[in-house]
């Protein structure tokens, strides 16, 4: 039952699987991305209040979701690494950071730009915006801490501790719109209730959300493979792989 878990823990196994899977995932990602863009930019209607600016939603919301999801993944992987001393978990955790930071920055930037036509200002200091900014700082702190250590193992553990501590910020971001009355929109997508959105806008949004997730997985796999190579440089399979690739 735990077999797959231990297999996952083997960098070599992960490397080969990731290499096999990524092309397929990439194809899926490209097609979903394209479909989402075409539907969102061309076929979906403008909002009766916001006009065409609503099209920013199709990238803002997926990016914002990803920024939070990736942080949780990073923290959970870090925790697994700390508790079970699993190499692979740390590799995942570390590889997540820069992708997550990018999505956080994108959510902030697209949100800020969207704010100008809708709220009349690029930036207000409301709870959700602020907590998202804090999330960016947490990502940056994670990366800075990891690069400040000379020893990779110590760096992994230290940054995992930081990721775990920072996880408290995630519920704050999510519930901020409920806890404080703010400018920012409340939840539009919820599993329990029927979405309040028109299907012609809902579909492109959902497709983009899935496409962004796939993008994350594909990019993560690339990053992980690079990282595995560096860390397993003493393993014979890596030596062989490097030697083969030279010819």
């Amino acid at each position, binding site marked *: 039952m735990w077999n797959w878990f231990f297999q996952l823990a083997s960098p070599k196994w992960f490397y080969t699987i990731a290499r096999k899977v990524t092309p397929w995932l990439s194809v899926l990602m490209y097609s979903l991305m394209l479909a989402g863009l075409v539907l969102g930019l061309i076929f979906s209607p403008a909002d009766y209040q916001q006009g065409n600016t609503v099209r920013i939603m199709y990238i803002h919301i997926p990016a914002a979701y990803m920024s939070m999801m990736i942080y949780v993944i990073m923290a959970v992987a870090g925790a697994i690494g700390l508790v079970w001393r699993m190499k692979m978990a740390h590799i995942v955790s570390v590889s997540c950071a820069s992708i997550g930071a990018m999505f956080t920055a994108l959510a902030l930037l697209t949100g800020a730009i969207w704010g100008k036509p809708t709220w009349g200002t690029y930036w207000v200091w409301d709870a959700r915006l602020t907590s998202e900014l*804090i999330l960016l700082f947490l990502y940056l*702190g994670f990366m*800075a*801490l990891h690069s*400040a250590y000379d020893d990779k193992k110590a760096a992994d553990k*230290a940054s995992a*501790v930081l990721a775990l*501590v*920072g996880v408290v*910020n995630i519920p704050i971001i999510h519930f901020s719109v409920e806890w404080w009355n703010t400018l920012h929109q409340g939840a539009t997508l919820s599993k329990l209730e029927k979405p309040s959105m028109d299907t012609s806008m809902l579909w492109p949004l959902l497709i983009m959300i899935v496409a962004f997730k796939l993008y994350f997985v594909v990019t993560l796999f690339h990053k992980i493979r690079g990282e595995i190579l560096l860390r397993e440089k003493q393993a014979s399979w890596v030596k062989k792989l490097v030697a083969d690739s030279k010819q």
Partner: protein
Amino acid sequence: MKNFNRIVTRELSVVFRSQSEFVYPLAFFIMVTSMFPLAVTPEPAQLAFIAPGVIWVAALLSLLLSLNAFYQSDFQDGSLEQMLLAGVSGSLIILAKAFANWIVTGLPLVLIAPIIGVLLNLELQANMIAMLALLIGTPSLCLIGAIGINLTVGLRNGGVLLTLLVLPLFIPILIFGASAVEAASIGKNYSGQLAILAAILILSLMLAPFAAAAAMKISID
């Protein structure tokens, strides 16, 4: 518990050995708060308006500054590893050091805050609430700060990296602390904010010592 007392006593006697040292964080606090009338505006109404925020930001920075002095030398001269080797648990060490840190840095802030409040034109009620909020909030700052300093203590320029790691975690305390004072100063209900501060304190008392102890062991290697 015996060891807790011992570590606290030792910390305090190191600090009080040069008797003037415990006034520094205080002095920093006073200095930063008095920079604002100079830098922003000397007008009383405006001052009272920015006072809660300024008091909290200053408290936060002065606690942040004190962390280094409290932890770094223990790492460098090897006395932390000696305590661990004497079988004292990491989280107990952290708890004791954070407590000593609060006694030396946090408590004086709490006591001096009302005076600063008067200088910044804060009225009595808000002033008392500011003190209360600081009393509940500053221990959490010491505990959370302990995590950050233990993660960064082995690194050069750790001081600034520390800030980067710790300030985001301080911000919720800052927000609720400042908004409690603000609510009090305009006569609104402030008990909600104080309750959240208390909840944060309990949470950090339960979790921070373990996280910081883990960080400490990583840094010692």
